C-alpha cells in the first residue's frame, strides 16, 4: 500500500499567509455589507465566503496536498446538496396559484 509515502509538512509561512488573507477577506465582506449593492449583496457575500472556504479547505484541511479522493468525497456531498436545493427550488418557483390563505 502507500506505506512509504512521506507526509507533507506545510511550511509555517503558508499557514500565516492564509490566516492573514482570511482576516482581510472577513474585513472586506463586513465592509461590503455596509454598502448596498442591491441584488448583488448576496452574490458578493457568498463569493467572498466561498473564497474563504476554499482557502480553509486547501490549506488548513490540506486538500491541496492530499489524496484527491478526499476532494471527490467533499465534491460529491456538495453536488447532492445542490441537487436537493435545485429540485426543491424548481417545485417552489413553478407552482401555479400559490396563494397563502393564512
Amino acid at each position, binding site marked *: *500500500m*502507500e*506505506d*512509504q*509515502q512521506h*507526509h507533507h*509538512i*506545510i511550511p*509555517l509561512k503558508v*499557514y*500565516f499567509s*492564509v*490566516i492573514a488573507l*482570511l*482576516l482581510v477577506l*472577513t474585513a472586506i*465582506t*463586513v465592509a461590503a*455589507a455596509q454598502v448596498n449593492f442591491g441584488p448583488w*449583496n*448576496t452574490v458578493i*457575500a*457568498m463569493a*467572498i*465566503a466561498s473564497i*474563504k*472556504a476554499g482557502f*480553509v*479547505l486547501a*490549506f*488548513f*484541511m490540506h486538500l491541496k496536498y*492530499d*489524496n484527491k*479522493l*478526499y476532494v471527490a*468525497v*467533499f465534491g*460529491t*456531498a*456538495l453536488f*447532492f*446538496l445542490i441537487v*436537493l*436545493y435545485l429540485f*426543491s*427550488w424548481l417545485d*417552489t418557483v413553478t407552482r401555479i396559484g400559490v396563494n*397563502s390563505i393564512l
Partner: protein
Amino acid sequence: MSTANHATAHGGHHHAHHYDSAEHEYNTSKFGTWLFLATEILMFGGLFVGYILFHEKYPEMFHDGSTFLNWRLGALNTVVLLISSLTMALSIYYAQVNKKNLTLLNLYITLGCGFIFLIVKYIEYTHKFHEGLYPGRWFNPTEPEVQEMAKHLLDQGHGHLNMYFSFYFTMTGLHASHVITGMGLITWLIVRTHRSEFGPQYYTPLECVGLFWHLVDLIWIYLFPLLYLIG
C-alpha cells in the same frame, strides 16, 4: 481484541491488527473522517437549503430580521474561529516536527477560542431572549416597534418574522452544539498530548479532530454573512 488500536505510552503506537501498517491506518482514518464530514455537510446543508428557499420567498422578512443581529459580535466570532482554525492546524504542524509543548500551547489556544466563541454566543442569545425574540411559536417581542414590524410584514404578505429567528436559533444552535463537541474532542487531544502520545510517527487523532474543527469553522464562514450581513 488484544491488538486493537491501543496506544501505549511514550509515543509508541501500534496500529490495529487489521491494518498493514501505521500509514495504512492513518490513511483509512482520514478517509473515514472525510466521509463523516460529507455527512455533516449534507446535514447542515439541509438547513441551508431551507434557509435559501424561504429567503427567496420572503426577502423583506429576512432583511428586517437581520437588523436585530449585531454584526460586530458576528465578525468577532468569525475572527475567533478563524484563529482557532489556524492554531488547530499549527498544533498538527508542531506534532509533525515533534514539538510537544508548542502542540499543547496551540491546542489550548484553540480550546480557548472555542470558549470565547460560546461566551459571545451566550451574550447574543440572552440579549435576544431579553427582548422576547424567541423562535417560532414562542416569538413574543417586548418592544412595540418590533411588534409593529412583525405585524406589518405579515399584513404585506412578507411572512412571519418569527421564522427568521427560527432559522437563526436552529442554525446557530446546531453549529454551537458542534463547537461544544469539537471542544470536547480537543480536550481529549490535550490529555493525550500531555501523555506524549503524539509525534511525527503518529498524530492521526490530531488530524481527524482538526478536520472536524475546520469544518465547524467552514460552516460559520457561511453562516456569518447569511445571517448577519445580507439577511
